[in-house]
């Protein structure tokens, strides 16, 4: 049952690790705005081929 020492140590270390990450992210200001990220994630990503699209649509219009 001495394994309990190891188990406790590891679990406490993991817990503290997550706690530290929480503190750091609060400090960086990630939790200051809890509403906008929920809207932002619903926007669609644009494919970076935009510039080429613009060129092609321009040439299409000319035709």
């Amino acid at each position, binding site marked *: 049952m001495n394994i309990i020492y190891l188990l406790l140590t590891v679990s406490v270390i993991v817990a503290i690790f997550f706690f530290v990450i929480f503190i750091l992210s*609060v400090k960086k200001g990630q939790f200051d705005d809890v509403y906008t990220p929920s809207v*932002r994630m619903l926007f669609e990503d644009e494919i970076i081929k935009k510039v080429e699209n613009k060129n092609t649509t321009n040439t299409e219009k000319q035709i």
Partner: protein
Amino acid sequence: MSNKKEHSTCYHCGDKCDVETIQYDEKSFCCNGCKTVYQIFSENDLTCYYDFQNAPGSTPSEISDKYDFLDNQEIATKLLDFNDDKHQIITLYIPNIHCSSCIWVLENLNKLNASVTGSQVNFPKKTVRITYLNNSVSLKQLVLMLSSIGYEPYISLEDYSSGKKAIDRKLIYKLGVAGFAFGNIMFLSFPEYFEVSEFWLERYKHVFRWLMLVFSIPVVFYSGWDYFVSAFKGLRAKMLNIDVPIALGITVLFVRSSAEVILDLGSGFFDSLTGLIFFLLLGKFFQQRTYSFLSFERDYKSYFPIAVTRITSEKKEETIQIYDIKKGDRLLIRNMELIPVDGILISNKALIDYSFVTGEAEAVKKISGDKLFAGGKQKSGVIEIEVLSSVEQSYLTQLWSNEAFKDDKVKAYQSLIDSISKRFTVAVLTIAFVATAYWLYVDASKALNVFTAVLIIACPCAIALASPFTLGNMLRIFGKQKFYLKNSNVIERLTKISTIIFDKTGTITTNKKSEISYKGDALIDSEEQLLYNALRASNHPLSRQIYESLPVKETIVLDQFEEVLGKGINASFSTKVIKIGSSSFVGKRENLQDLLTTVHVSIGENYKGYFVLKNAYRSGLSEVFKELKDSKLVILSGDNEGEKERLSALLPKNAKLLFNQNPQQKLDFVKEIQEKGEKVLMMGDGLNDAGALAQSDVGVVISENINVFSPACDGILDATNFKKLSKYLSVTKKAINVIKWSLILSFMYNITGLYFAVTGQLEPVIAAILMPLSSISIVIFTTISTNVIGRSIK
């Protein structure tokens, strides 16, 4: 030519296309501005803007030289968050942000201007943080670009002088520590709850116990520190506030639990201890919620611009910040600009709108040599003034140095919870001592156990949660009804109100429409048509109001149309000539009371009659006054007595009406009746009410557009919900009842727990169950009750 007004709605902003309809790209737009924004978006691949919401846009406003002050490097640097050779970062407050389309387009500014490398919107605060390359785009160009798409930022002196405030995150850290420790200690305490005399447990229980002790140290000394400080301050001031029994409970819990673990007497109450602190902090967090896009602390700085145009001795114009204005300077004030300092008018004529400052509904005509006060808005062209005093010395800003603005209303008011806590602490200590004395007599070994147990279980966790959760939820419910309160203490203060004071201009009147009546000779059809079309062509607000009140006529093209600034309109069609405007312009001698707004009409050589425009009172005003009959009503107005009779008819007999009140007089009046023992609710809207709003027990501002400046107050009420005022007040009383009921509920828990404590049977398990159970049931009860009473406001 159709006889009906167009009913299509603008694709961009959703307004009806009344005046004209512009067709472009198979869509209708209400004006050129909206069409231009659409063009900008479609040319830059931003048409996604319209996908998230219907008609999400707004008409861009006209700005000419308004942002020239941003060219001034000194001013621009002070506004920036970050500034180096390549990049600059600025945070702009954009009141128009209201939907997901706004977020989308503002985060895609890069498509409009490639020099913008990044932008992030904070929707609750309505700000956007833009990073851009300062070599290729200037701050002024950025602001102009935002304005051109309908998202004009609001930059005021407040942004310039106060700088950045550090965000206070301490409560979140404390909550995080408490929650983290609470969760872990709960798990560590399970073995002892479930397996009482198992062999392996006996060997390892000390490990668990010591771990629990270590975890709870930061919770007690960091997260719980505020309670100790507050209890100490309260005791020093000889007051027993609610933090005293809480601090007592925490101390006893920690001491007893540590003693038990160190001396191997038991397992301690660490889970109850950390759970207690966690729930208390959660209550504080919930109560602290605020509306980040509103500010209840605005003073004159939020209303004034940052810079103004000064005319140097060489007759050149330069932009200077308003703190640099010195006595004797000559300033150029353009149309619709604010006069930032007291001064003397140099130009021949000026038309100054003081409604926000003094409450006078009508713009005042001033002539050369007249003194002009700061805060007025120039309304008829460009004027030149000579400065008499600097910004800090002006009459208006002096008002803010009054001590009424420095009082902290929260500290002065003893809340319901504080008054109960006194009696509670005394009762608990009595019970503890009595029980201990009893056990000392019967079985001395149990005495200390019982004493500490009573103090532990009676810890007012549930009581301390009742108020924050009830009031916090009420704040949220009120916010949904567009009644934004500064903090939960305001709700308690609202229940004690005995006198309600209303300002007149802008508070109980709305400048959106006036009551219009015509007195004079009747007009024949062709004359009415001429009148209708002449008014249609004019942009003057009075013309627009009269135009909208007339029945629809056929549109004709006028032969001649001329608008004389400050005087009236000249128009003609076929043989008829019409003159609309002031009585002198129209050719009639002035013999009517000056108090009413009149617009005269003459056709050809004949004087026909005049339109009278009266203040339109807000809809539902007389009902509001009737419903508020339990309180004393007063009207304090900065305007003249012209409306006295109409108002007296709407109000009950014993209401007081005072006119021509300047801001200082309003403040003094509030002070006077407060000294007679009245609790005052002041409803106002402009800077002229600022003193009275600060002095009264609760000051509420009525706002037609909450994004625009409103003076420092305890609450902001959107004008559309003005008629619900009495419902709001009655709901606050019901909220206090909810708190009282939840207090009774928590007492029941306390009594149950006390039974166990007094009989010496208080096991850690029981405490660990009772405390979270009582806390959670109180939270559920208050949340459901407040939602139920909130429904009555709809």
